[in-house]
């Protein structure tokens, strides 16, 4: 998986609790992305980062925040998890714009 790890790989949580997912890369790639994957919707971009401390919203950013304090780590936070945020979350990295995005193994999140 091109030097990308995601943690945790599986998580079950309750509605209203905060959740943080971590993406860690060893490739020193500039761009990092968070997607969610749901049946019938493909992959939808939540937030992305184009450098340390530089982030922007994707198409489904409501209810999510991100932080990137160093090149190798990109954190996704659900401030107050809801059942609609039950999904598989993928992190991706890319060295340059419109280059291959390399995806991590995913985190399966269940919000009860």
């Amino acid at each position, binding site marked *: 998986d091109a030097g990308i790890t995601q943690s945790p790989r599986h998580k079950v949580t309750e509605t209203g609790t905060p959740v943080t997912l971590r993406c860690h890369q060893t490739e020193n790639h500039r761009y990092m992305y968070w997607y969610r994957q749901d049946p019938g919707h493909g992959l939808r971009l939540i937030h992305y980062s184009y450098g340390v401390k530089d982030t922007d919203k994707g198409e489904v950013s409501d209810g999510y925040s991100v932080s990137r304090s160093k090149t190798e780590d990109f954190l996704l936070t659900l401030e107050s998890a809801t059942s609609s945020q039950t999904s598989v979350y993928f992190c991706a990295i890319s060295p340059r*714009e*419109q280059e291959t995005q390399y995806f991590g*193994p995913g985190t399966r999140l269940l919000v009860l």
Partner: protein
Amino acid sequence: QQQVKQSPQSLIVQKGGIPIINCAYENTAFDYFPWYQQFPGKGPALLIAIRPDVSEKKEGRFTISFNKSAKQFSLHIMDSQPGDSATYFCAASIKGTSGSRLTFGEGTQLTVNP
């Protein structure tokens, strides 16, 4: 708002057949069109990509055909094998001031029977 529409949702072919997956886009500013392949339990992986200045690109058994005027592009898999059974996603992106972002189609689940 779904800017990239993909069809069919699922496709079953026999070994050796040529499955074709189609995508249509709305935004004429898109200028990069990759296809990703995903196996169960794994993250997607880039299969092949095309830019709108060419009408066709081949890599091994995989071919992208691109029709700029119709705003459509498709993936053809020649001599398909059971190992090609996976979910395929088309995508499109535009370069922006803060980096480019991919918009994915809904995915096509391909089954190649032996």
